């Protein structure tokens, strides 16, 4: 069970515990439709999210209701958006990543196996830490699923989608199963074709400066966000390892302090106590960096991909339109099937223009959202880091004061 603001664990998501967790997106939520994940339950190999909706829209039977959903159902919803031609001109909010507790579970298991080889204190300590880690991953996955729903709810068109309403309201199992092997393989090939196609389409120079600029920009941006995301992950991992080392040092110092019969035992005990506290702060620094920086980058990695997909769809439509034009010219020249060609051309034209129109707005919104999210997170990151550093400093200075006073 996930409890909001867990008692002894550090408050990772303290600000975001109530209401929509607009962690990485700055969303205007209005009273007409508010969605959040009010609860979640982690079972053996799946997570059950309680999706809670508050709405004044007439299309819903009640004003407030909840359903239980699993990850596959989110994916189903996302995919239904992607496959819907009507939404081709929108940036489809990226799907939340699959909840992945494997690494954490493995560590917990290893700990259990190695229980005999360490002291009881060490074991309890490590267990607490691994549990905190598990909890952090859990909170993160909840946040990411929630953000997806919030983005959909905030989008003027997507929020009206029928599947979305069913997702929110239908209180039975949607019977959406995960893709089986065959479907996954199909997806894989689809993606291969799409990327090859994407390259072709991207090669077509766009008349419109705005889109041409966006294309170049997004391509580069996406790659660099990917890189930054990976590097920030590595940095944070090192930070966590260092915090773990300090933990071990604290334990050994404690043992030394209790064993020692000389004057220095007091030093050992005091420093052990100090390191216990500073290590917690260090762990929190790493966790905050993870939330505010790494997660931000990861999210925009996904969003920039979604924006790229939009551009691809538009590019595709443009190519289709141009091909239709060519076909029409040919038909007119041969004076054969002209009507059909005209109709096709009309359709392509409309499709293209529709996509272009909404795409422009979507991309502008994307930028606005991005800038706001970065601002929010960077400011919060800086504030948290300052808070932690000051806390650390105070602990260190007070301990030093005590120790120096005693020599």
């Amino acid at each position, binding site marked *: 069970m996930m409890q909001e603001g867990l008692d002894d664990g550090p408050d990772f998501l303290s600000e975001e515990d109530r209401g929509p967790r607009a962690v990485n997106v700055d969303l205007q939520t209005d009273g007409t439709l508010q969605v959040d994940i009010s609860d979640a339950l982690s079972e053996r190999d799946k997570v059950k999210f309680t999706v809670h909706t508050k709405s004044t829209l007439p299309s819903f039977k009640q004003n407030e209701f909840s359903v239980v959903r699993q990850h596959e159902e989110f994916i189903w919803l996302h995919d239904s958006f992607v496959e819907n031609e009507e939404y081709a001109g929108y940036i489809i909010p990226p799907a939340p990543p699959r909840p992945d507790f494997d690494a954490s579970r493995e560590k917990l298991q290893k700990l259990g196996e190695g229980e005999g080889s360490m002291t009881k204190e060490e074991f309890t300590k490590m267990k607490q830490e691994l549990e905190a880690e598990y909890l952090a991953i859990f909170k993160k996955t909840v946040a990411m699923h929630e953000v997806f729903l919030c983005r959909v709810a905030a989008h003027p068109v997507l929020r009206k989608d029928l599947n979305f309403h069913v997702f929110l309201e239908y209180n039975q199992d949607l019977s959406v199963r995960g893709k089986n092997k065959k479907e996954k393989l199909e997806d894989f090939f689809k993606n291969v074709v799409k990327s090859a196609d994407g390259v072709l389409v991207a090669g077509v120079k766009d008349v419109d400066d705005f889109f041409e600029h966006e294309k170049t920009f997004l391509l580069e941006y996406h790659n660099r966000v990917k890189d*930054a995301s990976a590097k*920030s992950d590595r940095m944070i991992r090192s930070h966590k390892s260092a915090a773990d080392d300090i933990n071990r040092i604290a334990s050994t110092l404690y043992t030394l302090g209790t064993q020692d019969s*000389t*004057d220095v035992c007091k*030093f050992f005990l005091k420093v052990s106590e100090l390191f216990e506290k500073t290590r917690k702060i260090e762990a929190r620094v790493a966790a905050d960096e993870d939330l505010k920086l790494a997660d931000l980058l990861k999210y925009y990695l996904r969003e920039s991909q979604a924006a790229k997909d939009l551009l691809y769809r538009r590019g595709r439509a443009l190519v289709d339109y141009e091909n239709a034009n060519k076909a029409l010219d040919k038909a007119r020249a041969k004076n054969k099937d002209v009507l059909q060609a005209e109709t096709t051309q009309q359709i392509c034209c409309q499709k293209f223009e529709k996509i272009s129109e909404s795409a422009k707005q979507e991309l502008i919104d994307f930028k606005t959202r991005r800038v706001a999210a*970065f601002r929010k997170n960077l400011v919060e990151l800086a504030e948290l880091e300052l808070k932690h550093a000051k806390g650390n400093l105070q602990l260190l200075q007070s301990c030093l004061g005590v120790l120096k006073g005693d020599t």
Partner: protein
Amino acid sequence: MAAERDPPPPGDAGQARFGEAEDGEDLFVVLCSPASLPAEDISANSNGPKLVDSFLDDDPDDLFAEATEEVSLDSPEREPILSDGPSPAITPIMAPRIDSTLFDQALEEEEDNGDTFDICISVSDPEKVGDGMNAYMAYKVTTKTSLSVFSQNELSVRRRFSDFLGLHSKLASKYMHSGYIVPPAPEKSIVGMTKVKVGKEDSSSTEFVEKRRSALERYLMRTVKHPVMLKDPNVLQFLESSELPRAVSTQALSGAGILRMVNKAADAVNKMTIKMNESDAWFEEKQQQFENLDAQFRKLHASVESLVCHRKELSLNTASFAKSAAMLGNSEDHTALSRALSQLAEMEEKMEQLHMDQAYADFYLFAELLGDYVRLLTAVKGVFDQRMKTWSKWQDAQLMLQRKREAEAKLQYANKPDKLQQAKDEIKEWEGKVQQGERDFEQISKTIRKELGRFEKERVKDFKSVIIKYLESLVQTQQQLIKYWEAFLPEAKAIA
């Protein structure tokens, strides 16, 4: 003898144990603090010949590391049972036995004259001499002192690593079996040295040289802090004379080296077979205490080394992230955000340096001290072993005496006058040996008590001062962090 520090001249690592991590790094000039060391204890530093334990030494490079004392046929390391001589010592060692009063005096002197210990040794200016596999590093050893036993107030000589090992070797063979804890020399490193010889001018070989320089400095300081070692002519010669005979038998793969290995094996076997009746609870308690301390120090050392490693890793990863963030800032087309990201990148670059500095502090302050103490503790254990050997020798002498008496009794009945006289002479001889054995045992026990007292005092001093310095380095890091984030925050807020 108190160690009075001169006000820290830059680059002088007064409290030589913790040398300088980096030149000109303000963080570490602090190390040579004038406000230091009160009293008298000179670390009862343990001697290299960790008789048995060197076998169990983890570091394969250093299989021969402690094999630095001269082992000759008259060496005390041989089986006490076989040794027939009145005192199983190479000639100079007679001195401590016979003139034990002289040394007791020296030791008392140290307690009386609280403030006359004034010597500061620094090791600096490593220079590569020669080329290829015969190349070596020469270090400048500078001694600043007002002690009368030195010819001048300021001396400077050039020494190479094997000279240090040679010095240690001589001191060990002289003093170790009297129960003195002789400070262990820094460890050999075949890998590290080879890199330097081959001329690899990269950061790892510079680090290696710096690590070694620092270790040599700490070694010398510990050695001269010991009142007995300080007066030893070998030490004086080492610090003063411009030319030193080359210590050849310290080489890893020399004949002497092999002989040392063999002797150590023999000692290991012996230790297992000697079962001592400990009549003195104090020793038993102390031994147990040091066993525990050793275990904990090793554990702590390992954790601190792991911390150093991770911090270095953090520094590298931060640098790499900084570059990545800069790139991201470049491609970001919103001007204010772009600028903020660049600022973030710049800040992370500064953090990279900060983390690296902290890693050095972790290492040179904390990890190296722990490493030194792990080696010292093994030497302490060696001293206990020596006592056990001395006891064993005494017991064997008693056994022999008894046998001689029995033999004499038999001869009484057999009535062989000439053989009888011989037997009586032998009894006299062995009575003397028993007495000597008992005296030796008492002397070594007394020495060890004193040495341990000194060792503990020194340990307390060392750790207190290092812990404080280490915490100060952590404080500095946090203060810097605060500065950096405070500079960045307005930039982040400026994103509009």
